[in-house]
């Protein structure tokens, strides 16, 4: 038992953090928003050069063959920066799914291009009503009518669905048959699809955790600098206590998100309930932290000029992405009411064959 990240895991996250600290600040976000481009090409190129696309793709399929625990801190960093580009969805959800289901030369070719960073892959799954980043993706994995399709972007007719988050490019598909044949029946790849949902939820949770910390950090910086009644507002207990409460939520969300990543592999009812717990806790921590940050900023917090709203909006969007709170509460409830409970079961695994 050792609940710590390895030095390599920390180093990978540090590299992403440092890149995003240099190239994904609120000023960068505002510049990008004005351009209405799906990506900041210079930033995306640097991210692609880090070679993280294949982080969860097995080595024999051309990936790095790493695990969810290796990527969770990266996803957290992406949340902290409110990264617009789809590193988390592409590397964390779409490509491991594509690698698991790609069996024909066309799919293999698309996987190869995605791993090289030439294209990204977006996912259409019944858990989500829309497809994120579909217009900039090279290919889309779409679950439709009991089949999984792998379509190239140009095959599809997309309709933009504006999100309150200016950097989430949501789309729906026109209701017409996919021009290519399905690559798998969903019943045959149920485990792979389940894993995709769980990865989506886990990495959304990690981003929400990052968002929560960023919101507290922004509010703390403002509370130190803003004076009222002749003193920084952060010296008043009413302000301190709001921020301390937001931080307590974060402190008891972080270990759940990290344990969900560390125990992801088993895929059993315990592991899936922990992913759901992580998602619920992180969504709540982010919601509280972002609303606290708005409040601490006062009237400025309600303005377009202050950066808090980027994080508030991303938190709102991710709270129901890859499973809304009802879905995840029910999964935790299933574990609570169908499995033995007790102090000795924090790291319980389902019995083999059970």
């Amino acid at each position, binding site marked *: 038992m050792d609940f710590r990240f390895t030095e390599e895991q920390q180093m990978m996250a540090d590299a992403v953090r440092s890149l995003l600290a240099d190239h994904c600040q609120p000023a960068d976000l505002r510049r990008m928003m004005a351009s209405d481009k799906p990506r900041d090409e210079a930033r995306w190129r640097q991210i692609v050069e880090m070679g993280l696309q294949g982080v969860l793709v097995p080595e024999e399929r051309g990936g790095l063959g790493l695990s969810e625990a290796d990527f969770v801190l990266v996803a957290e960093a992406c949340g902290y920066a409110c990264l617009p580009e789809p590193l988390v969805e592409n590397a964390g959800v779409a490509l491991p799914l594509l690698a698991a289901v790609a069996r024909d030369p066309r799919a293999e070719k698309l996987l190869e291009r995605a791993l090289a960073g030439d294209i990204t892959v977006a996912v259409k799954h019944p858990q989500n009503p829309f497809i994120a980043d579909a217009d900039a993706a090279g290919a889309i994995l779409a679950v439709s009518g009991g089949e999984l399709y792998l379509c190239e972007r140009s095959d599809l007719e997309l309709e933009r669905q504006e999100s309150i988050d200016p950097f989430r490019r949501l789309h729906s598909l026109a209701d017409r048959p996919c021009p290519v044949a399905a690559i798998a029946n969903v019943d045959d790849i149920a485990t792979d699809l389940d894993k995709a949902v769980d990865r989506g939820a886990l990495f959304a949770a990690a981003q929400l955790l990052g968002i929560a910390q960023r919101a*507290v950090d922004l509010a703390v910086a403002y509370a130190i600098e803003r004076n009222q009644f002749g003193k920084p507002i952060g010296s008043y207990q009413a302000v301190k206590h709001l921020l*301390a409460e937001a*931080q*307590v939520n974060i402190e008891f969300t972080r270990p759940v998100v990290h344990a969900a990543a560390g125990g992801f592999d088993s895929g059993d009812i315990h592991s899936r309930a922990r992913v759901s*717990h992580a998602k619920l806790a992180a969504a709540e921590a982010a919601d509280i932290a972002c609303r606290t940050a708005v409040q601490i900023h006062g009237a400025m917090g309600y303005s377009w000029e202050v950066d808090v709203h980027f994080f508030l909006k991303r938190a709102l969007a991710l709270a129901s992405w890859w499973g809304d709170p009802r879905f995840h509460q029910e999964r935790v409830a299933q574990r609570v009411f169908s499995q033995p409970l007790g102090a000795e079961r924090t790291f319980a695994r389902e019995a083999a064959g059970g």
Partner: protein
Amino acid sequence: MDLTYSPEEEAFRAEVRDWMEANVPASPLPSFDASREGFEAHRDWERRLAEGRWGMVTWPEEYGGRGLDLIRWLIFEEEYWRAGAPLRVNQNGIFLLGPTLMEFGTPEQKARFLPKMAAGDEIWAQAWSEPQAGSDLAAVRASAHRDGGDYVLSGHKIWSSRAVFADWAFGLFRTDPESERHRGLSLIFFPLDAPGVRLQPIAQIDGETGFAEIFLEEARVPAFNRLGKEGEGWKICMATAGFERGLMLRSPARFQMAAKRLVELYRAHEKQCGPETRAAVVRSFMETEAYALSIYQTASRLMAGGTIGAEASTNKIFWSEMDIAIHRTALSILGARAELVRTAPAVDDETRWLDGYFFSLAGPIYAGSNEIQKNIIAERMLGLPRG
């Protein structure tokens, strides 16, 4: 990251489980705060634990421990609470003073106090607060005058947990009469039956006498009983408070077992419960898990040489609020039966929830109120300016 137990850790768990199954009293002991009989029954349990060398598994062997790491401590605690073993009557000693003594005590002090503490022969109370020094602990007035090789203690301590039946107390005294605030204080031990020590039990919210006032009227103790240097009391006291709020006092297993019992209670009354109760039960499960995972993460970090900081304060806020939530949900499930006390003929198992509920209300107050903890988090963790 490895979230599985090693074969050695599993073997250790089996060993603890076997011992607990053979030794934990079949029926619950009477409260240690309500009678001498209950207190002594708990002392006997401490002695039994010590005979099996299970009193403090993390302590060095020379003081009656096993020198085990924090993951094994967590495993021990899980099995301890799983077995329904009694509350630790000596928690002020073993969880608070013990670690402090190991850090600040002389070899002679350690040899004098730790083995008897581990053995249950000496049960400890704490004597920090005074009528005018609660959250503002640096306002203590109780004094210790040096007289040759002794200190003469005078003053008025209050809210001293376990003091009614315990053997010894440790408290904060002003050794420099000219000093103010946190300077000039020393941490001194005194026997509760020494001449000049007078106790006045205080009835708690539930009617039990879990704490007392202590009147010190020129009680004389040897200078040997001072921990650390004269004037170092505040620093040592803060370290002790860190232990109290931090890892040891509230092991996650206790809350996980409470959540398990809450699920059982819910199942027994499922038909009368609405979806909001079900959601509250599931939430309590998640919170106890989050607390356990957090402590495992901290334990792993400490074992690799890390230190515990302001998370002692975040822990304290989290477990105390969680404990209240668990008990409030239980009382809501029990509905109109929740108010029954032990002597009511129609009572079944309800009173443990009512007792637990009252006990949980103390959580946000003792060991530094949650409001003080929030100040600590804001100032030391987030870097906000002092008021």
